[in-house]
């Protein structure tokens, strides 16, 4: 069994901040630095926003990870939306096809330590992002 796992369904605009606040609480309780807490919180907000804007609904899964002298947080954002045709392009700055500012994915990639995106047209999108922090 995993030590911590929380799933936040995304289907309304208010779920975006709700998911972000959950990430804030989880990272704070786990003892992440304030700066890392802010980055994780912002990343979750961006990922949840992508789900809401492009797919309409989906979910964000927040998990705590442990490795050697580090603790980590893993965020999986998944939806069954239209998928992304050109992932490389979606990761370029200022590229957008929805009505958000289109700054989400490249920003998330920059502020998290690991970023994996799995998407194909018609099959939805799964983004996995991790942030590591040293153990106190």
């Amino acid at each position: 069994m995993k030590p911590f796992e929380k799933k936040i369904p995304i289907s309304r605009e208010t779920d975006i901040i709700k998911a972000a606040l959950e990430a804030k609480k989880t990272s704070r309780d786990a003892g992440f630095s304030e700066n890392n807490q802010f980055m994780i919180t912002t990343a979750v907000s961006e990922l949840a926003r992508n789900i809401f804007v492009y797919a309409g609904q989906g979910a964000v899964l927040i998990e705590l990870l442990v490795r050697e002298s580090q603790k980590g947080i893993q965020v999986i954002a998944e939806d069954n939306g239209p998928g992304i045709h050109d992932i490389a392009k979606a990761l370029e700055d200022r590229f957008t096809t929805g009505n958000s500012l289109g700054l989400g994915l490249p920003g998330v990639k920059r502020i998290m330590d690991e970023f994996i995106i799995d998407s194909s047209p018609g099959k939805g999108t799964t983004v996995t992002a991790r942030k590591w922090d040293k153990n106190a």
Partner: protein
Amino acid sequence: MNTDKIASDVAMHITYGCLVVPVDVELYDDTVLHIREEILAKVRETRVKGVIIDLSGVSVIDSFSGGVIQDTAKAVSLLGATTVISGLQPETAAVLVDLNLYFEGIAKTSTLEAGLRLLQSAAAGRGEGK
């Protein structure tokens, strides 16, 4: 139906000729849009020359809320007033740059008091606020 109760009222006040906006609610999309309208209405109505948006009480700032705040500051400058964003730690500001939010032309201070001092010295430089 949206049953969440979301606070969107921020207790703005005017002190030393500056509109002080202490944001102590979470910035849901509707909330930040509402705050923008309130600020612009207040600046038009009172003709203040400075606006301080204090974000120290906000836990989540993302590309949407950050973008709206950035646009608010631009609109405020079109109304002839200067905006200072306070309460952002340097690390936080760095994260916002990663989201392409540079808050260009907007002064940033770590505390509300520092923001107030900055606006007052700017007003003094213009020969106002005596």
